[in-house]
């Protein structure tokens, strides 16, 4: 699907009819509420409200909504077809429409393609060809945005002093307070779009005393300030990692949470083919365990407060003086051989190297890294410059506190929640000093609850907006549905107030709403405007280069305290800085490295834990200055000693729905990297819910490891040796689809695999297969969330996950090997292998799981009686059983039923489910062409996981196409099947990961790692 497929939204539809549209929605909800089909236990429920239409048109109510009505009939209950009163343009019942838009919930405005069926947005994808994510890739939070759109927790009406009021009354109160106010404080996120920024400027003109602050709870303010000083402008360093041969990350999770992760991942993955022209090498020096560290070829555990020593030593070593570096290495326990290799590599690859530093590191480090990059000649090659980033530099929180303490007449908080996440102490008191507070947000969060006026926001998918995508490119976001809960976007609030205050501004007074404001700000003719909507953005990326850094004096940070602890308050790979804390999908998605769900924990090295005398689930007290918090402990291999890593944003108390009361709020400690005192605290053992418990694939009860050969990896030298081996003596003994010896363990594949029956012939039609490159996977979880959205996968909560009942169809298995303080990590996305000799099928007594002629392992929910025998007999344990009526339990409001993909059956209690290779997409692709028995083209079908995967680690296609994607992947000499020897003949092929170990350090490792 390209953006050309996107049908232009009718721009007049919602804009002109916004209130009516909203009314229609409420009527629709009323219908829906009445029509809510109860989740029967004995039936598999398809999305009951499957064909509700939401979008546009005051005349429309809904389309083919199937209303289950109780009837006394012995037959099935009578159901209704509510045809529309009038049909909107383009709309076809049950057929998807695609709209281009822009994702505005993160710091980087990625292109968005919204799939909408019968008026409901049901799936988000990356926008093909968009400058920031040209491959149409997306992040996990992007995929999960749908959850917050249909979140029943959302505030439904403006409130004044806790009581519902009308919008006009609320506006009147705000405007009344603003009139004549001397000191007004306007606090927004740092990611306002250009049109919103212009509106803020107009607001400040109308309210002379207004102060505008960009508030970010866990921002990279320090780094941005450093860049501003050394590069001379408030811009942002961008990466072009596809040009890099050597990358050094100093505590920067650039593949997970730091910066333009889609761009970083795209660039990085482009260089990770061991047989490609360039095979880059990634060095990661990091304090905690991140996806980036997992992808590293060499990983150095780094005490974050020693980053200064690391950078300074490295700079001197690049200048030829390695004494300081070796001294520091001795002092901090860095592997001198790795450092030597790093220096060699950096020296040898000037112009093709990049150094990235994490946002929480001190200013001194960032300025040192800037000069290091200059030394390495990164500018214009591996690093670029964006003078107009989407995110402004955030305001120092101290300034906000100061302004509030001064007692402003009016304080307005738009889309921020400092009551919960203000770093440090004193915010609640300071807020009390404001005479009149206004807050607008999606849900009634802590800040909204504390404000005099609380206003419901429209969701980003219900709003018009624009964004500075990259130099020369502006993105456009269009509403996909009328506001479900009568919310209003922030721009509309600002506009309403400004209009009321800016008397005498005729042009503004005539501006009907933010949509009109935006349209006039863009100044395009109708055709060009519709073209922009169709495309999602305008302009083309301008080339900008990273300026030469200017020397700037930054204070040297203090030396690490001997015996003290470093605390890193990191961004969570799923919930980020906490802005998605109300998103239960993201909360239930396991953290990349420790697989914890529904919690933030104090991750620490096992040796540190034993030094503190704590075990998993015990509590520690972390004290920074005056503030202290208590956190549950998780000993995690790979975390730097004497360092506690935890995640920000947790511990919400209000407005987060399922996220309320989840985790511990660590904002009181401050932000980023802190020096802390840590002691064991009393408290009951805390249940930490994890989706994986054993991380050693060679786990054994004795000293001899059990060699399981599940996730395979090797070094370049091993790979070369392997390639030099003579071909297998008799390849005919093996499955032809396998084709190659598996790397690097050839021993087990000497077993000839035979079968008493003649194998089923799959050569006639398509034969679907999937291939996963373990060398590419960064563990970002985008595939999991894409699958969750696409396939209506339920969440079942912390306790159920703790019992071993997580429901993901695709999971990312993580295996650790080697020393506990710095293990080697392998990630392995695991999903249904669609085995040709599927053991699950044989044992199902009722034919509920069968095989299709195209090689798919099919699961029929309505036939399943729930013996669970199939999952018992699944060697990969990828089947998921609905132990309870999870769908019913997670659906707290009928509005959530709108979210369901109508092309995938919703499962109920007692039913087994599993990955279907997105059969609905396969069928849709087939049905899109006439049935002339022709084969679908390679790439005609993309699975949800494949489409989302930012690293392109997942490939799906027809294995019968010679030279096709799957054929090529299977013929790779790195390809293997997991558990091939049990002869279930899986259709998922894995490619072993090659760790690009520096040749000086490459020695054949014994065994599979």
């Amino acid at each position, binding site marked *: 699907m390209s953006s050309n497929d996107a049908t232009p939204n009718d721009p007049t539809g919602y804009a002109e009819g916004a209130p009516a549209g909203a009314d229609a929605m409420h009527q629709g909800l009323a219908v829906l509420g009445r029509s809510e089909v109860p989740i029967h236990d004995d039936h598999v429920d398809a999305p009951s409200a499957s064909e509700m239409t939401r979008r546009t048109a005051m005349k429309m109510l809904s389309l083919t909504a199937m209303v289950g009505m109780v009837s006394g009939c012995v037959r099935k209950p009578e159901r209704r077809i509510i045809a529309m009163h009038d049909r909107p343009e383009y709309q076809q019942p049950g057929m998807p429409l695609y709209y281009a838009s822009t994702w505005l919930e993160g710091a980087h405005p990625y292109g968005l393609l919204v799939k909408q069926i019968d008026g409901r947005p049901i799936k988000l994808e990356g926008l093909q060809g968009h400058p920031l994510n040209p491959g149409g890739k997306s992040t996990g939070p992007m995929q999960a945005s749908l959850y917050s759109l249909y979140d029943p927790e959302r505030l439904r009406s403006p409130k004044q002093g806790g009581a519902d009021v009308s919008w006009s009354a609320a506006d009147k109160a705000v405007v009344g307070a603003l009139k004549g106010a001397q000191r007004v404080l306007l606090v927004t996120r740092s990611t306002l779009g250009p049109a919103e920024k212009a509106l803020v400027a107009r607001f400040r003109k109308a309210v002379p005393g207004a102060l505008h602050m960009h508030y970010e709870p866990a921002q990279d303010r320090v780094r941005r300030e450093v860049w501003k000083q050394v590069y001379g402008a408030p811009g942002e360093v961008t990466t072009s990692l596809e040009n890099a041969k050597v990358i050094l990350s100093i505590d920067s999770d650039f593949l997970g949470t730091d910066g333009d992760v889609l761009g970083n991942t795209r660039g990085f993955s482009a260089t990770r083919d061991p047989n490609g022209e360039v095979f880059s090498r990634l060095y990661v020096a990091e304090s905690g365990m991140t996806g980036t560290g997992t992808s590293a070829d060499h990983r150095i555990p780094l005490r974050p407060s020693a980053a200064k020593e690391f950078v300074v030593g490295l700079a001197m070593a690049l200048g030829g003086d390695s004494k300081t570096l070796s001294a520091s290495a001795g002092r901090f326990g860095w592997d001198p051989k790795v450092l030597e290799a790093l220096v060699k590599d950096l020296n040898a690859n000037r112009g093709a190297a990049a150094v990235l530093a994490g946002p929480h590191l001190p200013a001194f480090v960032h300025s040192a890294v800037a000069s290091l990059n200059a030394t390495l000649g990164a500018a214009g090659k591996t690093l670029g410059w964006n003078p107009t980033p989407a995110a402004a530099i955030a305001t120092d929180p101290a300034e906000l506190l100061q302004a509030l303490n001064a007692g402003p007449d009016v304080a307005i908080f738009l889309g921020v929640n400092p009551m919960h996440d203000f770093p440090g102490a004193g915010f609640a008191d300071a807020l009390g000093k404001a005479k009149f507070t206004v807050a607008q947000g999606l849900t009634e969060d802590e800040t909204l609850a504390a404000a005099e006026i609380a206003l419901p926001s429209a969701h980003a998918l219900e709003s018009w907006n624009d964004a500075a995508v990259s130099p020369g490119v502006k993105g456009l976001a269009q509403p996909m549905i009328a506001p479900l809960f009568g919310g209003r976007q922030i721009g509309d609030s600002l506009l309403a107030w400004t209009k009321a205050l800016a008397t005498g501004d005729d042009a503004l007074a005539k501006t009907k709403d933010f949509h009109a404001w935006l349209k006039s700000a863009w100044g395009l003719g109708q055709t060009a405007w519709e073209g922009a909507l169709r495309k999602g953005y305008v302009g083309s990326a301008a080339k900008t280069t990273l300026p030469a850094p200017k020397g700037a004096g930054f204070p040297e940070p203090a030396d690490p305290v001997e015996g003290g602890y470093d605390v890193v308050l990191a961004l969570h790979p799923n919930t980020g800085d906490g802005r998605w804390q109300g998103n239960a999908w993201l909360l239930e998605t396991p953290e990349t490295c420790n697989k914890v769900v529904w919690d933030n924990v104090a991750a620490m090295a096992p040796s540190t834990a034993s030094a503190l005398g704590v075990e998993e689930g015990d509590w520690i007290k972390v004290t920074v200055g005056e503030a202290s918090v208590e956190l549950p402990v998780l000993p995690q291999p790979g975390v730097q000693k004497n360092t506690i890593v935890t995640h920000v944003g947790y511990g919400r108390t209000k407005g987060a729905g399922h996220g309320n009361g989840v985790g511990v709020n660590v904002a009181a400690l401050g932000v980023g990297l802190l020096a802390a005192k840590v002691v064991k605290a009393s408290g009951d053992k805390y249940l930490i819910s994890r989706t994986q418990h054993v991380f050693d694939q060679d786990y054994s009860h004795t000293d001899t490891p059990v060699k399981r050969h599940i996730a395979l990896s090797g070094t370049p030298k091993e790979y070369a040796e392997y390639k030099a081996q003579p071909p297998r003596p008799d390849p005919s003994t093996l499955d032809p689809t396998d084709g190659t010896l598996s790397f690097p363990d050839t021993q087990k594949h000497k077993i000839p695999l035979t*079968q008493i*029956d*003649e*194998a*089923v012939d799959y050569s006639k039609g398509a034969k679907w297969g999937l291939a996963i490159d373990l060398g590419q996977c960064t563990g970002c979880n985008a595939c999991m969330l894409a699958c969750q959205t696409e396939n209506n996968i339920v969440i079942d909560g912390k306790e159920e996950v703790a019992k071993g009942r997580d429901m993901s169809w695709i999971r990312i298995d993580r295996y650790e090997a080697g020393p506990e303080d710095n293990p080697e990590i392998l990630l392995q996305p695991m999903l249904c292998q669609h*085995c*040709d*000799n*599927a*053991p*699950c*099928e*044989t044992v*199902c007594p009722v*034919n509920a799981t*069968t*095989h*299709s*002629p195209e090689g798919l392992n099919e699961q029929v929910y309505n036939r399943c009686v729930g013996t669970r025998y199939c999952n018992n007999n699944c060697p990969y344990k990828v089947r998921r059983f609905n132990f309870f009526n999870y769908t019913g339990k997670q659906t707290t409001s009928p509005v959530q039923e709108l979210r369901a993909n109508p092309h995938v059956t919703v499962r109920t209690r007692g039913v087994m489910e599993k990955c279907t290779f997105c059969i609905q997409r396969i069928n849709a692709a087939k049905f899109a062409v006439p049935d002339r028995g022709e084969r679908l083209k390679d790439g005609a079908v993309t699975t949800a996981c494949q489409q989302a995967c930012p690293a392109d680690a997942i490939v799906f296609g027809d294995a019968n196409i010679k030279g096709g994607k799957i054929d090529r992947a299977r013929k790779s000499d790195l390809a293997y099947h997991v558990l091939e020897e049990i002869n279930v*003949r899986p259709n998922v092929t894995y490619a072993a990961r090659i760790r690009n170990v520096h040749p000086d350090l490459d020695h054949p490792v014994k065994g599979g790692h």
Partner: protein
Amino acid sequence: MHDQDRKVVGMIGLFDEPNALIAAAEKVRDAGYTKWDCHTPYPLHGLDDAMGLKPSPMPYITLTAGLIGGCLGMYMMYWMSAVDYPVRIGGKPYFSWPAFVPITFEAFVLFAGLATMGGMIKLTKLGRWASPLHDNDVMVEVTTTRLGVVLEAEDPKFTQEAAQALLDETGCQDIRVLYAPEDEASEDEASEDDDAATEHGEV
């Protein structure tokens, strides 16, 4: 009503000792009686020979039913899995006969068992409760402790005197005449539907 007013349906001789019964049975058999029987509370070894009974056809019934059951079972599985709605399962052929063996066997046993039960009920003429032994209150003797030889009036050789003589000859100490039930006497004559009463061996 006096006994002599009632219709005599047979005569029973009761024994306390198995050898005596065997001997008595042999005598009755040799005397050429056809409608007679022995009643015992438990199976008595050698009595079948003593009575001159032919071997029971039960084994043939069981075997035939079992074979039919097994064939039907296998055919059912073949038809359902390979003909009516063939579904591909686990890479196996539609007619994956090795996997069908257990159920074929079970079908054999099921049919054989049902036929054995049914055949047994038919051959032993169960499901008929009425008996002159009940009518004359001697049933309790032969189902608990004692052994009896019954000569039926239906037998062409039967006369009350001849039967008495034959039983006396066997040394029987306890000989009783079996009368038809008083209120059913007339009815019994015309009870054509109650063919069981006139059937061979039925008392």
